[in-house]
């Protein structure tokens, strides 16, 4: 099964629950096998698989929850206040690993997915655009906002601990 481990990781990040992630992956593979004819040769296979998985998630119970979909169109919302940058070297420390994971988990899903596709799956902006069915410009603005939101929330967490 191509991409099995990566797709599972991504599904679990999206659904934030093991059982649900397993259901998502299973459904995505069934859809992919059934709909293989809809895959256009010459287009990106990986982006196609992730798109199926993500669409499956969006129509799932968790994906339809209002908390998960709110702010999907907030790419144009006001900029976050600047000057929240902290010394990011603090993140190298392995003890901050869980803190970082919690911060990623706390991101709205449309920030979380774009960040993971870029940093973990190391997709190009073009691939991300294909996966999420959004223009490259939106990929860039969303990614930048996701990173800023993550930094801001990390700083808050660091202050609190």
């Amino acid at each position, binding site marked *: 099964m191509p991409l099995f481990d990566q797709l599972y990781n991504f599904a679990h990040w999206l659904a934030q629950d093991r059982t649900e992630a397993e259901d998502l992956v299973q459904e995505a593979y069934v859809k992919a096998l059934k709909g293989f004819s809809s895959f256009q040769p010459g287009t990106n296979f990986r982006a196609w698989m992730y798109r199926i998985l993500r669409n499956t998630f969006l129509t799932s119970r968790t994906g339809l929850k209002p908390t998960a979909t709110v702010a999907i169109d907030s790419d144009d919302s006001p900029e976050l206040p600047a000057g929240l940058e902290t010394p990011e070297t603090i993140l190298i420390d392995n003890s901050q690993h869980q803190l970082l994971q919690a911060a990623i988990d706390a991101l709205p899903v449309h920030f979380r997915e774009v960040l993971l596709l870029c940093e973990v799956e190391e997709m190009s902006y073009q691939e991300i655009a294909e996966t999420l069915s959004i223009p490259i410009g939106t990929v860039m603005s969303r990614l*930048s906002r996701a990173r800023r939101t993550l930094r801001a929330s990390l700083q808050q967490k660091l202050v609190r601990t």
Partner: protein
Amino acid sequence: MDDWSPKLETYLDGELSASEMRTLDAHLRTCPSCAADVLSLIQTKRAIQSAGKRYSPTPEFRERMRKSIASKPRRSPIRMWIGVTAAVALLLVVGFVTSSVRQQQIERQQTFSELADLHVATLASANPVDVISTDRHTVKPWFQGKLPFTFNLPELQDSEFTLVGGRVTYLGQAPGAELIYQIRKHQISVFIFQDRAAGRGLESSSQSQKELSFNIESWAHDGLRYFVIGDASGSDIHALADLLKKAS
């Protein structure tokens, strides 16, 4: 000075244009503040990458998936995926090769039919040539300053061909020489262009073809692209082409 800070993340994602990449590379060597930012961004990137690889499927789930997929198609899922991947790869390769071959054919056809048009238009003109001379030592120098290249013309004393004259012509916005030769009552055009301007879809080795029942022969030599076209027989066209090849 440009403010690079908004672009640093794009830079680390490898998504700046090649020229911006180079400019920023150079900038980072001289700007300690940007270099420090880049360093901390790299560390964040690495941290997110390792934190992001958080979940892995349980062995039970992996096994369950393998079975559930295997039970549907008769072939094993792995072989099925290999088959599918191979088929896709094959389609891509075949598609690419045929489309580029097809593209070459189309370009060659376009070039040849444009040349046929030029040849006909020249012969239909009241003044087919701008330099009228049977002497190659008159015709060749006439092109001086009119073309960005030069060429040699063959000695015709022992052949049936006579030189009628020449003119400047254009193909695909590039200037070239058109020489008119005569054999018996047939007039033949020889076109000479720069190969990079006129060689679309053509190989450097000699090619002959019929286009609208004109005979055409074409080859490239020393960066120049030669075409011999006319209603004379294929062997006459070939004989003139040979003379030109020997001269060049």
